[in-house]
């Protein structure tokens, strides 16, 4: 399997997992079409990172591997070994900050598999958590509040 194929396959799997993680994280709210909204979101990786479901080092590694994937997709002869190197550094130091020197060869395939596995584990862990829900609304109180706010608002319409 070529590096380009490894990167493409791994990055597609990560993109799918980002969407699954966001869906698992967002409270059930079918009337607002959560699935459609999540699917329309751009840059799901950054949203997963903001949600605390990717560490900083994992996020950097995933970002850099996606850049390498995009470069090879656009120009197959692109040099991307420096990107794999950098992603590997961020990933290994996300596990152990003192894992600074590494005598092995950086592996895009291993990095992508590792990211897929940790994200799958986090998705599955989220599914086991009790659903997060806001306290039920009190429509009568909310209506009174909105009317009161309107009456207090003296700004031009």
């Amino acid at each position, binding site marked *: 399997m070529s590096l380009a194929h490894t990167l493409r396959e791994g990055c597609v799997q990560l993109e799918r997992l980002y969407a699954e993680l966001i869906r698992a994280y967002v409270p059930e709210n079918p009337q607002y079409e959560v699935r459609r909204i999540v699917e329309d979101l751009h840059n799901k990786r950054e949203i997963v990172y903001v949600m605390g479901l990717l560490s900083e080092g994992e996020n950097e590694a995933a970002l850099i591997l996606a*850049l390498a994937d995009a470069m090879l997709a656009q120009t197959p002869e692109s*040099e991307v070994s420096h990107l794999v190197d950098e992603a590997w550094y961020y990933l290994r130091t996300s596990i152990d900050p003192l894992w*600074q*020197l590494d005598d092995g060869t950086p592996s895009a395939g291993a990095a992508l598999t590792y990211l897929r596995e940790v994200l799958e584990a986090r998705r599955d862990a989220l599914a086991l958590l009790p659903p997060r829900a806001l306290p039920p609304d009190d429509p009568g109180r909310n209506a009174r509040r909105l009317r009161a706010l309107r009456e207090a608002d003296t700004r031009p319409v």
Partner: protein
Amino acid sequence: MPVAFFGHGTPLNALRDNEHTRAWARFGTELPPPRAILVVSAHWYVAGTKLTAGASPRTVHDFGAWAPPELFAVDYGAPGSDALVERVRALVAPFPVEADTSWGFDHGAWSVLVHAFPQACVPVVQLSIDRRQPPAFHYALGARLAPLRDEGILVIGSGNVVHNLELFRGEAGEESWPARFERCVRDWIIACDHDALIDYHRQGSDARLAIPTPDHYLPLLYVVAQQRDDDPVRVITEGAHGAMSMLSVALG
């Protein structure tokens, strides 16, 4: 006009009066007044080559909440220069360079400029570092900027030749790996050994510890790419503190 690389260290240097910031200030006063300044900062490390456009780029406070309010209050109000943006684009054409109005002057630029050019009256443009590209690309792009030296434009690279925050408290002393690698880089610059500087990742474990990621090192390649055979090399300041080097050099 010389070209210069500054090891900017912590953003707090913007507020500090120490041996390094005084050396930066001396550099600014001893220089013929530049028409404009082009800064390649470690902190604009993105997927693309871009230039800050517009008349008044903002001051970017690109650090965390750990920083004191005085640092967030710094406003380096130098004007931008769309003329320099267009000149750089012409020099590197047909390679595409985007004129960008979303970024501004980040602390890699202004933490040095507040000392070297405190009046903030010289127009400044920042050039981003395309993180997708290998070191040789950055060296080649830097070489394309060499004519600016004869046009009164000061080109500055701002980063650190040793920059490993994870090991920041680790090593000290003349024989520590940060000090050793700082001396290596200085000697390669003096010897015009650009191949060694470009192939830094092949320079052993000191280099791997000093440059865990390329962002803070690559600005140096834009500077040495403009080095001429007869350029005197002046060490503006140096010193490895923990896992960070303050090595700053002027060429020419």
